[in-house]
């Protein structure tokens, strides 16, 4: 297996930004996660290593260090609820409980139907608009229970 051609074309351009190839590793892992199933599979790590001339274990060492890289396949939607201080002061505990109830997923788990993965995350830099979560890469801020119901109600065409 190797990385798909559309990605290697993109990554080849990316390598021109840096004097050393390894510098492209984190941006490459991001793109792989986005394009190859929402996680960094062992195969992806081997393919990235081959592309960059690294050992697979070096790629694993980096990928596993950074919380944004998932080592397991996620559900269809990923909800990351901030539970740091500014959000906690404005109701992050209640928000997390509501998200878990709506999605049927416990924190850091995927719902039985595979539709949602819920994660707690540290400060996302949305402190003046707390509480917040990130749903599939988009920030939702100044959340209230009503807003949360509406956001989830509107997912997948309201299904």
């Amino acid at each position, binding site marked *: 297996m190797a990385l798909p051609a559309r990605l290697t074309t993109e990554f080849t351009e990316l390598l021109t*930004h*840096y*004097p*050393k*190839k*390894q*510098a*492209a*590793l*984190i*941006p490459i*892992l*991001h793109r792989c996660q986005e394009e190859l199933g929402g996680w960094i599979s062992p195969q992806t790590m081997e393919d990235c290593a081959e592309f*960059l001339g690294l050992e697979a274990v070096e790629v694993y*060492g*980096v990928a596993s*260090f*950074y*919380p*944004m*890289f998932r080592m397991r396949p996620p559900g269809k939607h990923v909800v990351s609820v901030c*539970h*740091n*201080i*500014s959000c*906690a*002061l*404005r109701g992050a*505990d209640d928000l*997390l*409980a509501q998200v*878990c109830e709506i999605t049927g997923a*416990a*924190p*850091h*788990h995927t719902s039985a139907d595979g539709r949602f993965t819920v994660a*707690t*995350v*540290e*400060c*996302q*830099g*949305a*402190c*003046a*608009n*707390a509480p917040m979560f*990130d749903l599939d*890469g*988009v*920030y939702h801020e100044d959340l209230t229970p009503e807003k949360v119901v509406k956001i989830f109600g509107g997912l997948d065409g309201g299904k």
Partner: protein
Amino acid sequence: MSNYPTYLLDRAKITDAHTLAVAQKHGAYEALRKVLKEGISYAEVIRVVKDSGLRGRGGAGFSTGMKWSFMPDPVTDPRPRYLAINADESEPGTCKDRVLMEQDPHGFLEGCLLSAYAIRAKVIYIYVRGEYRAPYNRVLAAIAQARAAGLIGKKILGSDFDCEVWMHKGAGAYICGEETGLMESLEGKRGHPRPKPPFPAAFGLWGQPTTVNNVETVFNAPFIVLRGAEWFKSMGTKTSTGNLLVGVSGHVNRPGVYELPFGVSCREILEDVCGGVWKQRKLKGFLPGGSSTGVLTAAFIDTPMEHDAIKQTGSMLGTAAMIVMDETACMVRAHEIIARFYEHESCGQCSQCREGTQWLHQIFHRIEHGKGRMEDIDMLVTLSRGMAPAKTICALSDAAAIPTLAAVQHFRGEFEDHVKQACCPFLPAGTKRPVFAGAH
């Protein structure tokens, strides 16, 4: 609320200021144009920034002009050199750089280019935290527009100044906001901070001379170059000059990111700017500059928001991210959360930090959940004194220890109440703090 002169967020408030046309209509790239057209030397740019008293806005408050002047002379040291912009904004409570990148990306890019000019770097890396997709995309689009307009690349505006700008995404590790952790991460490695010295100006990215500056810091540079050091010093205090972005979060009526001169009192920020404590409650305490800065009681609310005055309280200005807690907030719970954060973010290189942050979190947790012992309170102090000051490669250990010491110093009674009552006194009778299985 008094009307203070502003400049940082003026353009950001204009509709479509993120587009090159609108930004340029409102002054973007004027300072860069002036420097390149009038042939103002790099030394002159460094001099005016040094004279202005500009201090870094990323937390440490070091003189920006001084930092730039540490870069070696390219004649005697012709190695490639880099400017790395620290846009890894992840100090809890801090959400200011995001506003500049999203709302005024061209003002930000002009600041990057002028800073690169000053240190004679031909390549800029903007290291943005991975979660900041919207700011990342805004700056990326602005770079494309600026490149097409001859503002980035070879022979910028027809001058001899060549400069490339590349965006680089982080992946959720707080430690990469530490400048040497950032450089390791940019090289594609784990974000393990490096021992200093050598400092980045001598041995930075790939071992080459490097300067690392915060987003808001470089954002100030074009204004100083255009309007002069005296203008800049007319705002703020003698040792903390200019305006800064103050982010206010927590229990206030109007949380937000506000532009204010250094030296405005925390009371004015809380009451006039943010409309006071929410729900008509009383103030219990506040963290003046993010989660790494020690908590202060309500008695300190008249402290001016500037480096020296906040330092005198025993806390720190940090990133001026004021986190406000009302009378119902539990200080043990607040510091349990903060301790959990540092445990999660410790890179693990230094034992004091790796072990210490875990112990702090466990002790805060058991006190909060009614399982604390009286001696735990002094244990927090003993542990913290083993972790700081300056006992580790970087300041993350200090960032966990110092707020712990402040919490015990100012709110010891609350800790004792938790132990005596074997529960959190701030929870309604018969209820328990939710503990989410699987949550870290």
